[in-house]
């Protein structure tokens, strides 16, 4: 398994620049996830690693060797496509054998490897069938098998789970991680689903508008988002953002109330900033600094989502159903200052450090 390095990569299609000056170092055996909304450049980046797109600028190195001028056939990487891209006219066995045929592997060895891979993925029974006769999950596994059988330098996966239904997705997530562990593989995984990113990644690369917004472990991205975009993208339900102003000392002025943030900001009183609080981070507290007038509640079972307003700004809170407020009520909520995030104004507003 190998290291992959992207150095100063950018890609433009005509006048549109889809990936802008990206640097990324992927360690041997790392499971790294590129995550972001549609159009952020994550798939393009993956395809450039694969060799299916040529970067407009920059270098791609595998194990230190530049591969940027090599066609995909020569890079020894395996890719799992979103729609699996199985060869519908071949049986499962032949699909699995196909990558080995290019390498001049002996027939006996091919049969052996196909058998082994099929068993590893639970495909032993369907070897003679064609993709059209398989279920979505089985097709997914054939696609995986085709990638594994070659023992490539790294695995590239382009939203492989997005065509599966929810329940299947959860199962396959586990299977992929187990597989990656077992093979100690380097995996570059692309998804728009931040839950997948958080549960599967060693490190997460949050992308937007062709740039890396943050690179870090799932915990880092969640607990210390680098900017407002990352904070809003990672975590469900989405973080609340309140337009507030800097108050005296270690406080912010939020719709007339003062909220202590446990430290001071390198800004002047009255400067606008954005306060970010996750819905699950607030508790209903009659002594709390924030007043929420609840307009709508959604009972999710053990928890309830309450939609409300602080002043004129929308605010969402998540509480155990037993302690949840009702629609029409006005409650006070409190939040630990460690769970408060302050950002500069703007969609990509940088996180501001609070000096304790």
């Amino acid at each position, binding site marked *: 398994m190998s290291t992959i390095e992207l150095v100063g990569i950018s890609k433009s*299609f005509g006048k*549109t620049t*889809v990936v802008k000056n990206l640097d990324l170092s992927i360690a041997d055996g790392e499971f790294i996830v590129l995550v972001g909304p*549609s*159009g952020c450049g994550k*798939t*393009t980046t993956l*395809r450039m690693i694969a060799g*299916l*797109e*040529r970067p407009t600028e920059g270098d791609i190195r595998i194990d230190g060797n530049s591969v940027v001028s090599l*066609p995909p056939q020569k890079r020894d990487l395996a890719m799992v496509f979103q729609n699996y891209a199985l060869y519908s006219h071949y049986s499962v066995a032949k699909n699995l054998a196909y990558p080995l045929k290019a390498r001049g592997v002996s027939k006996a060895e091919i049969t052996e490897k196909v058998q082994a891979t099929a068993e590893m993925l639970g495909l032993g029974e369907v070897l003679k069938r064609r993709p059209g006769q398989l279920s979505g999950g089985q097709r997914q596994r054939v696609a995986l098998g085709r990638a594994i059988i070659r023992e490539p330098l790294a695995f590239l996966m382009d939203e492989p789970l997005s065509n599966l239904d929810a329940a299947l997705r959860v199962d396959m997530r586990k299977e992929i991680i187990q597989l990656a562990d077992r093979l100690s593989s380097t995996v570059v995984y692309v998804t728009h689903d931040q839950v997948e990113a958080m549960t599967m990644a060693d490190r997460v690369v949050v992308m937007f508008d062709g740039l890396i917004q943050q690179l870090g472990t799932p915990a880092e991205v969640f607990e210390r988002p680098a900017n407002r975009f990352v904070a809003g993208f990672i975590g469900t339900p989405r973080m609340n953002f309140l337009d507030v102003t800097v108050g005296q000392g270690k406080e912010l002025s939020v719709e007339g109330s003062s909220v202590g943030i446990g430290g001071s900001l390198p800004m002047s009183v009255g400067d606008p900033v954005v306060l970010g609080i996750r819905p699950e981070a607030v508790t209903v507290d009659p002594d709390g600094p924030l007043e929420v007038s609840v307009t709508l509640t959604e009972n999710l079972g053990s928890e309830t989502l309450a939609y409300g307003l602080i002043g004129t700004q929308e605010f969402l809170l998540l509480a155990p159903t037993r302690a949840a407020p009702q629609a029409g009520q006005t409650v006070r909520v409190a939040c630990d200052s460690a769970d408060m995030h302050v950002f500069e104004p703007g969609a990509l507003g940088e996180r501001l450090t609070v000096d304790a």
Partner: protein
Amino acid sequence: MKFRLKTDYESTDRRLGLLLVTPVVLLIVVILLVPLFDAISTSFTNLRVPGGEYETVGLEQYGTILGDPDFQSSLGRTVVWVLANGVLQLVLALIAATALNSSFRGLNMVRAWIILPWVVPVAVIAILWRWMLDATSGGINWALDSLGLISEPIVFLGDPDKAFPTLIAMNSWRFFPFLTVLLLAAMQTVPRSQFEAASMDGASAWRQFRTITFAHLRPILGILGLVGTLWAANIFDLIWLTTKGGPSGRTETMPLFIYETAFATFNFSLAAAASGIFLIVLMLIAIPLGMNARAELARGPVDGIIRAARGKGN
């Protein structure tokens, strides 16, 4: 935002592409362009028979042929032939495709067998229709007579006035099923939801046809118009085998005229000149049709549903 991300192969792509089209290019150059060039150069001579003597005479043959009244009427006739066939075949094909545009058991059988007239060699068609249209023993006259519609038999192919329209009908009969199958296929790709939405919006069946179906068909109609025109213009065998251009040359279209000039009156260079002019005329027809087809292809059928929806309250 999804880009059409294509595989980036650049120069290998280019080399491969050129390699792959080499056979077809060779085919066209050797089988088409070389003889074509030969013919065009012959048209600048006064060659009468291949292998005979000749001298280069510039545009003299062109002048001669343009002044030839037989050539003129043949050319005019050919234009009529092309237009009449085009319109008739398209109309018939649209009607047929519309009628067939519902799934019923046996649809595939019907679709396959209606093409029969196109599948059989022209000799068969010639025999079939010469017999059907025969004044004394033919089926058409017999049927018309039995129905009491005529008192004496109609002469079709032997009548100088009727022969040409008869041939147009015959040729259209031969080709329209093929067009039908193509149109039907295009029709069946229209997503049902477009019709359903239009119905909800109050659009009548006719309006739905006009705006949705027709919009979907435009691109293919463009291409068919182009190819169909070219095919029709070059029809030789059907006319040759039924009337040989008669009676009194009233069914002689350009292909026959060229053939006769070359093989009957033994004037190859004159025939070549006639061909040259014919070619130019065809190009003049084909190029605007081709442009039209491309424009339609770019437009796409989404307009259909919008127009259908706007049709309510009308």
